[in-house]
């Protein structure tokens, strides 16, 4: 039966809009859950609230106010109510039990430190007792994300690596704390198709091997269909439909159909795309 690792109930998030001097709902009444060990995706256009939903899970969004309930089931039957946690408790959650990978690996890495130094910093932060073995551990994690020459990458500065390699480094850093939930927010949007395939296969591989649950955020419904167990389609801050692999991702709403037609472009070449 249902064994969620994350259960979001009626989440609403409001931001203050300086132009109108009023609050605006960015996420409205969103309920979604991620089954343990599953790959769940949120798909939507820019501005649909998918990233704010993802950030809210570890309370990273810093809104004007929010409402609802976010339950994190590290262990079954003993949920942690994230909305009620203090800053100190959140620290253990962020980057610890819940890890994030973002779109632009270039801006997530420090340009003046070597990749190795940055991974070691993460190791020391999560496992102070293993500080001495940090270098070894960094290499281990670089191999885990299938880096062909971990030693070289360890010595390299971020600008010496390609976009795909930088994203692997980010994934390696995210995995150090052995998180139970990995939130990947458009991790392949800035990458080429061939590299996109590699990163997606890597995530899928890690999900299977490390009993990781993945919440994947994308605007590409085609990509989401290839990997997800469940897909939540968001529009203007709300979930409009939930698609699942079991029913072949068949959709009932026109909006999901439209999104699909726009991302697959199945019509004849040079014909107008139905949107």
């Amino acid at each position, binding site marked *: 039966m249902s064994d969620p690792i994350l259960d979001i109930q009626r989440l609403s998030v409001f931001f203050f809009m300086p132009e109108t001097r009023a609050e605006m709902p960015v996420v409205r009444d969103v309920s979604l859950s991620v089954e343990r060990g599953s790959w769940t995706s949120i798909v939507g*256009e*820019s501005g649909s609230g998918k990233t704010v939903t993802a950030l809210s899970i570890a309370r990273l969004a810093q809104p004007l106010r929010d409402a609802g309930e976010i339950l994190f089931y590290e262990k079954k039957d003993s949920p942690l109510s994230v909305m009620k946690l203090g800053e100190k408790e959140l620290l253990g959650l962020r980057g610890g039990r819940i890890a994030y990978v973002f779109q632009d690996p270039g801006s997530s890495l420090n340009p003046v430190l070597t990749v190795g130094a940055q991974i070691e910093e993460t190791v020391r932060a999560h496992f102070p007792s293993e500080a001495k073995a940090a270098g070894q551990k960094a290499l281990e994690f670089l191999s885990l994300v299938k880096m062909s020459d971990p030693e070289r990458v360890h010595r390299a500065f971020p600008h010496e690596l*390609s*976009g795909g390699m930088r994203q692997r480094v980010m994934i390696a850093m995210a995995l150090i704390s052995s998180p139970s939930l990995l939130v990947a927010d458009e991790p392949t949007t800035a990458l*080429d*198709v*061939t*590299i*996109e*395939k590699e990163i*997606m296969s890597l995530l899928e591989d890690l999900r299977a091997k490390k009993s990781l649950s993945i919440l994947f955020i994308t*605007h*590409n*419904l*085609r*990509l989401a*269909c*290839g*990997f997800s167990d469940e897909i939540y389609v968001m529009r203007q801050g709300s979930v409009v439909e939930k698609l699942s*692999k079991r*029913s*072949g*991702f*068949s*959709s009932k709403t026109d909006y999901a*159909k*439209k*999104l*699909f*037609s*726009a*991302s*697959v*472009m199945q*019509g004849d*070449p*040079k*014909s*107008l*795309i139905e*949107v």
Partner: protein
Amino acid sequence: MIIEVRNLKKRFSGQKIAAVGGVSFGLQKNTTLGIVGETGSGKSTLAKLILRLIDPDEGEIGFEGRRIDRAGGGELRRFREKVQAVFQDPFLSLDPRMTISDSLKEIFLLRGKKTSLDSKVENLLKTVDLPGHFASKYPHQLSGGECQRIAIARAISAEPDLIICDEPVSSLDCLVRAQILNLLLKLQRERSMSYLFISHDLSVVRHMADEVMVMKDGLICEKGPAKDLFLSPKHPYTRNLIQSFEYPCQALGRDL
């Protein structure tokens, strides 16, 4: 042929391999040539060479039967009136301190036309499906898709024969992307223009192009009609590229 390129080469100083290492192709009038390739394959350098934004080391570029690879002065100016470009980031293509109206008027002013500019702007906005009140807005007040429409409006205001589209929809999400592609298709039909369409997104190129050219390390590794190239790719690199992009589709449900 609207454009004919022969053995075009460009190597940047300090680089071991050429960004463009001897490329030849032709583009038929009123058709679209798609160029695909990964980052660093030389596709954008090729675009810049054809636009004459950078000079080639070697090779010839012919435009409507005339060589323009060494053209300068008035000849280059006339060429540039006939060839326009739409780039990836629409915010970088527009002057942040000029209103949309002023941006759109520039080409007319450069050509010495000073009358009925407002109605010309209004017509341009209509052509790219934007309401007239956008004329008084600034780029930062527009969304990515709206900005790209303005960049397209600017390009067509010169009444070009060729538009070089370098990743024109790569920073847009899929619904907006579809709208912009539809706009480009509609304009091509109405105005019989040619497109050189560069993208790393194969689904986009498959949809837009009559002919496709695959680039790798500054060279063309395969070229052919879009239909044949996607159905039966000959070069292993092309096959690999197409597989990476087909891969996620395989798990798709039938109902969609």
